């Protein structure tokens, strides 16, 4: 898929990205995004009197913490030129597995282990199809998106699992200190881990190298398939973590849990300045994008905008953030000519 699109852009004589104006726009992408985040914050605090309250803002973080956990792993995966559309279905399957375990009397530690293990197994399943069988990740994960959630539906039907142990609610409902939630702490820890992994380690360099030129990466001694497999494992694992948080927060599991979340995760990653074709992007960008999306949905929520209308904004945001820099470049080129 990515190869194909790159071919096409080359055929259309899109100027080399390194020398184009787009490069400069992208260089300041995080700065621009930060300005947007601040602007949204200011607009929101004028639009609704309830916005500037520590507890409300703390509640608002739930809008993005779970999605952002997955988005960090997804960012690495997209930088490497692959994609995982099955993350929301992994959440459903992991949550169903935990719910099933509760019926057999599992305690909180077992539930955490089960959630993480199911996430890892699903990631390994995706990774196997993509790296061992060499299939395009977009089709594989569209398939597993149906398969994983399908298994949840087989197990649960239109039923729901409830009765999670009281201590399990700590992950999604607990507070570390004052208004700072457990999820916020997890969000910060995971952001730091992925930031270091991508920007400060050989593994991170390998991810960029693979995204820019998989063949070149292979010939420079990077085990491309192994790195990609690990990235699928990490994305699965993070979906497992998100499943634990979400299940703990909701206190129940239905097979339709987290429906459509893959879209919001991909939007967050792309909004964070990660090139959907792979090869570039940063973790700080994704962090700011998470805040932007969280603030937008929270602000609209305070103004009584229904969730489905918010999704229009998310969709426009997704297309807009990619379209605007390109329109900018095209307008600049026209002015020059």
């Amino acid at each position, binding site marked *: 898929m990515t190869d194909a699109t790159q071919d096409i852009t080359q055929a259309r004589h899109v100027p080399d990205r390194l020398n184009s104006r787009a490069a400069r726009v992208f260089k300041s992408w995080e700065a621009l995004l930060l300005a947007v985040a601040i602007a949204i914050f200011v607009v929101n605090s004028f639009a609704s009197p309830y916005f500037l309250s520590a507890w409300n803002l703390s509640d608002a973080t739930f809008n993005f913490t779970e999605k952002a956990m997955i988005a960090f792993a997804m960012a690495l995966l997209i930088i490497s030129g692959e994609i995982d559309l099955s993350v929301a279905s992994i959440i459903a399957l992991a949550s169903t597995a935990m719910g099933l375990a509760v019926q057999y009397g599992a305690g909180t530690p077992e539930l955490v282990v089960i959630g993480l293990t199911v996430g890892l197994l699903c990631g390994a399943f995706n990774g196997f199809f993509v790296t061992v*069988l060499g299939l395009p990740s*977009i089709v594989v994960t*569209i398939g597993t998106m*149906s398969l994983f959630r399908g298994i949840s539906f087989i197990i649960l039907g239109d039923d729901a699992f409830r009765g999670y142990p009281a201590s399990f609610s700590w992950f999604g409902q607990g507070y570390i200190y004052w208004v700072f939630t457990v999820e916020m702490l997890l969000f910060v820890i995971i952001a730091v881990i992925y930031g270091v992994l991508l920007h400060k380690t050989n593994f991170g360099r390998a991810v960029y190298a693979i995204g820019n030129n998989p063949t070149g990466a292979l010939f420079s001694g990077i085990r491309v398939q192994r790195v990609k497999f690990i990235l699928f494992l990490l994305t699965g694992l993070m979906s497992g973590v998100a499943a634990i948080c979400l299940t703990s927060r909701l206190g129940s599991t239905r097979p339709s849990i987290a429906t*459509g979340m893959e879209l919001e995760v991909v*939007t967050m990653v792309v909004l964070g300045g990660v090139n959907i074709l792979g090869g570039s992007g940063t973790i700080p960008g994704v962090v700011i994008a998470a805040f932007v999306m969280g603030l937008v949905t929270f602000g609209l929520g305070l103004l009584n905008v229904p969730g*489905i209308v918010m999704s229009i904004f998310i*969709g426009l945001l997704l297309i807009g953030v990619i379209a605007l820099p390109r329109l900018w470049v095209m307008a600049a080129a026209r002015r020059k000519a």
Partner: protein
Amino acid sequence: MMRFIPVRETILGSAILVLLLLVASRFAGFVAPSNLANVFNDTAPLIILALGQMVVILTRCIDLSVAANLALTGMAVAMINVAMPGLPIPVIIAIAIFLGAVMGTINGILVWKLAIPPIVVTLGTMTIFRGIIFLISDGKWVNSHEMSPAFTDFPRMVLLGLPVLSWAAIITIILFGIMMARTGFGRSIFAVGGNPHAAVYTGIDVGKTQFWAFVVSGALAGLTGYLWVSRFAVAYVDIAGGFELEVVAACVIGGISIAGGIGSVGGAVLGAIFLGVVKNALPVVNISPFWQLAISGSAILIAVAFNARAGRNKGRIILKEAEGAQ
């Protein structure tokens, strides 16, 4: 020699036959002609959408917005019908196709003029279209008693033994068969997907061909929108939710390569029929319909793994021949 026998279609066709025989061994009535006609009629929307999706996938794109497009068009024509019950059905159908094509145009322009990856564009427009349904309908349902009898009866009307809905699928299949094999547009779709560089050198505008592919897919989604809403006699925000995955599944199962350039009308139709038979057979053999999602997911994985194997072998043989020639 092998190249003259459509291997994939034959295998898929046999798989469908085996499936039918398995079901028939437990419930003979399933393979009665009248029931098979029902299964085909039930699968007709999937067939129409799969053909549109096929054109898009052949040009190395993907259209995930078809189900949302269908739902939005369906809601729009249902509301038009409620507001103007006297409007003749051909006009309604024309409006549906036009609205669908407009949405396809939006996808197409974003892919063509701004070179945004199709998956991003259609993921975005998918949610935007769904959101717009909520905005125009205010979250309310349009129910059967509000629609005019002409509006709801049309897809059920029987012509030459088959309902109009089935005929719509058959006509689409024939038109696409002619378009893909006999027109310049059809050939350029294969050229763009097979090798975009070569397509440019032969004078084909890659972006423009992709644009028209999206318009075609959108127009068919619009048509299906009317057929869907009038057949089920209800329109609401979530109709055909997640149906885009089933459409992509039908294409992948039908042997249309997601990398573009490889695929056939027969493959897409058989892929859709395969899913349709599975869906209709599940209740007959006493399996909960909740299995449907997992089965179509597995079918996608098996089909894509299988097709990739087949494609790889072909490549090796060509290389060997080339080596032998030197």
